[in-house]
């Protein structure tokens, strides 16, 4: 019963201006299975790339993780806990890959390691062939909490990453303006974050990452802190933004339906320490809209993923609930 209700709401409220595929990308063929579809030079994808990535793209995967092990040290006792244990993952150029798993399975640690925020104890991470040792301009993170700087306006927050890189103020502003439109915050550029709703803050968070034009966009449970309706809106918008920008994305979530809706590939993590249990290719056609949820394949895929997680953890879970 609850499912029916949420789905109906999703249908009603998901009808944002971006809920329908924009004409510019409507004719784009579904992505090839190898994930190596060429970058489409849409209005947003055409932003000046910092380095000539496209040349390296066909030979070098955007993300290459090998034998990754992450351990945490308890700051009081000095005890070591393994969070991620031997993960290999490759993400091709323009691919949207999502890691799902139970809370505390190490998926966020995995993302933080790719972001360069924590150091793995073993294994290697390379983005576009370059080994990751610390955060860099080739990656941008959208955090679960919006964490906007409260003393900067919306526009100031969006340009934050560019300001740090020494991009001239005027150019940064111009680039940010484009993303203000993309995340539908026109008219709010000069607001302080404190005056924005949670959903709007999360859009700024997203724009702040996108404007830096990273090779790899990292989404850390980006909608987990939002209410159900806002979340579904944001999923629809993210789908559309992805249709326009065709960024390579690594997302982490515990919502299986969200993972299936957005991704080309879903990677299922086991409980702690995290290992890859399975990789499921999502063959729902691209460009996708939120209506993809009504495909019969959608249910099959979510059930399949749910089954894998259920099988590994004795915990019961249904796809529509957070697990």
């Amino acid at each position, binding site marked *: 019963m609850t499912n029916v209700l949420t789905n109906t709401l999703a249908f009603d409220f998901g009808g944002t201006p971006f809920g329908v595929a924009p004409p510019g990308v409507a004719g784009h063929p579904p992505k090839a299975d190898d994930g190596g579809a060429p970058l489409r030079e849409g209005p947003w994808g055409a932003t000046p790339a910092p380095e000539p990535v496209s040349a390296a793209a066909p030979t070098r995967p955007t993300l290459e993780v090998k034998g990754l092990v992450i351990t945490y040290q308890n700051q009081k006792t000095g005890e070591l806990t393994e969070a991620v244990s031997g993960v290999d993952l490759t993400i091709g150029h323009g691919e949207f890959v999502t890691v799902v798993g139970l809370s505390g399975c190490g998926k966020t640690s995995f993302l933080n390691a790719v*972001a*360069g*925020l924590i150091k793995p104890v073993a294994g290697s991470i390379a983005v576009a062939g370059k080994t990751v040792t610390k*955060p*860099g*301009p080739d990656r*941008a*993170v959208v*955090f679960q*909490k919006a*964490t906007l*700087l*409260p*003393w900067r306006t919306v526009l100031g927050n969006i340009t*934050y*990453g560019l*300001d*740090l*890189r020494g991009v001239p103020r005027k150019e940064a502003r111009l680039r940010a303006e484009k993303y203000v439109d993309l995340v539908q915050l026109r008219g709010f550029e000069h*607001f*302080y974050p*404190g*005056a924005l709703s949670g959903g709007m803050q999360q859009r700024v968070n997203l724009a*702040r990452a996108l404007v*830096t034009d990273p090779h790899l966009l990292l989404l850390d449970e980006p909608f987990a802190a939002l209410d159900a309706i806002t979340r579904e809106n944001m999923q629809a918008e993210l789908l559309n933004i992805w249709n326009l920008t065709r960024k390579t994305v690594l997302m982490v979530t515990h919502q299986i339906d969200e993972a299936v809706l957005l991704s080309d590939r879903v990677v299922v993590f086991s409980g702690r320490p995290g290992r890859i249990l399975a990789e499921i290719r999502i063959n729902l056609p691209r460009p996708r809209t939120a209506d993809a949820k009504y495909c019969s394949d959608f249910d099959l895929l979510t059930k399949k993923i749910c089954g894998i997680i259920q099988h590994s953890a004795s915990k019961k879970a249904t796809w529509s609930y957070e697990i």
Partner: protein
Amino acid sequence: MKYDLYDFRTRKLLESLIGLAMSVGVIIALLVLWEVSADLNLIDPMFSSSPSRVVTTGLEMIADGTLWKHIKASGRVFLAGFGLAVLFGVPIGVALGWFKWVNRAFTPLVSAFYTMPRIALMPLFIIWFGLGDAARIALVVLSAIFPLIVNMQVAMQNIDGDYRKVGIAYGATQWQLFWTIALPSSVPFLLTGLRLAMGRGLLGVVAAEIFGGAEGVGYMLQYAGATFQIDVVFVLVVVIMSFGVIFDRSLFWISRRVESWKIAEA
């Protein structure tokens, strides 16, 4: 709709006017009570003065220039001391809060000085710096500097870890983290520190001048008290009080302006 808004604004205005009237009323009532009891000889004006006598004496002191002379002398000491305290206190506090090892090395020393009554050092300062302004300035610096140091230290140690993480994720250097995150988020602490330092500084000026010297509000206060000029004492109390209120209100006003983003949040 329009009418409602008008109504709302009128009510708000009325509310603030009533509030103002009440606060002014309390002060006036007390002054009247004071005046009346002195006039009726319920209290001895010899010991307690009266508002009218204070005003008359005050006007006389303004006319013959003595008040201005002493205010100028005290003001010089206060501004020099306060300025130096800000100049040194803020960077020291930042260093203590930002660098873990500086913190570990110097915190015990700072706490020891922080809890100590600074006036106890006045004899030393007079020996070191003589009876001129220098000793008094030293006491003001020492009085005003600790609220600044401690507030900036706390500000640096309370930087939201999430903001720091955002900075690091977007490739900020330590220097950039400091400028774009630590400094803006420390502004409220800085303003609190300034207000506290102001109060301590005023205390320092008056205490130093009472301790020794030949001019300044504190010196005159002490002299008037010793020679039983109660009216003069009250004039000086009013002067010090007004200075404190004006300074404090201006800092408060500045903090409201600087933190306009906080108002948006409320």
